[in-house]
């Protein structure tokens, strides 16, 4: 069941790229009630899309991902819960090197690198059944 108040909102989304429109609306609603600026909203949408699409692409086993947004003073926390037997810790993913030429760059890794740049903290936990990711963005 979706839950919400002005500082906390949570909803499950079908694992499909088509869900992105609903996810952006979900973020938009929270952003208005929490008076986030355009730059903050852009970063949050970007980070959510990257984590969500990774879950769609690499863990297609279950059908839904639960996403939550939680404002705690100056901290905005974005949570993801995904049923996943094999852990994939995004914090361990090797960073891309932005100074490399096109010829030397390998595909992939752009999204996770940018999550780390656009958000202030990335936490990953796995309990044997679920992967839980919490992204933190400091907001004024």
């Amino acid at each position, binding site marked *: 069941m979706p839950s919400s108040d002005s500082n906390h909102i949570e909803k499950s989304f079908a694992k499909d*790229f*088509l869900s*992105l*429109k609903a996810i*952006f*609306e979900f973020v*938009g609603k929270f952003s208005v009630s929490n008076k986030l600026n*355009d*730059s903050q909203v*852009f970063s949050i*949408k*970007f980070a959510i*899309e*990257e984590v969500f*699409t990774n879950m*769609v692409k690499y863990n297609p086993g279950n059908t839904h991902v639960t996403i939550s947004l939680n404002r705690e003073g100056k901290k905005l926390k974005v949570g993801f819960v995904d049923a996943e037997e094999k852990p994939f810790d995004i914090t361990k993913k090797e960073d*891309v*090197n*932005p*100074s*490399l*030429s*096109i*010829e030397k*760059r390998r*595909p992939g890794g*752009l*999204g996770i*690198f*940018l999550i780390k*740049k*656009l958000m202030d903290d990335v936490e990953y936990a796995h309990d044997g059944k679920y992967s839980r990711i919490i992204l933190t963005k400091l907001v004024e």
Partner: protein
Amino acid sequence: MSDFKIHHREGEGVNVLELKGYLDAHTAPDLENAFQQLLNEKRYRIVVNFKDLSYISSAGLGVFMAYIEDVRKNKGDIKLTNMTPKVYNVFDLLGFPILYEIYKDEKEAIGKFKDGKKQ
């Protein structure tokens, strides 16, 4: 909200793609198709105008990476223009300004093709 549109026009031998809306994992294939169609028609002088692009994700950024080498091998280029600060920021974080020519406005980018720097 996450609608995405591409408007293609051509003038003076340069193909301009105007992007509008949200370029995300769901809509990135539309941009891939647009680039692929230009390459199929051997049109390698390409300017992408970002004026009305509200949002881009790594899926969208990856499309530019996927086509730039093929375009340059054919003596063309993909030049980028009119980015908003939010969109420019993600290009900048990835070091894309050293990989792509990025201009403030479309006329300037078209002018660079006319200067004959890259045909």
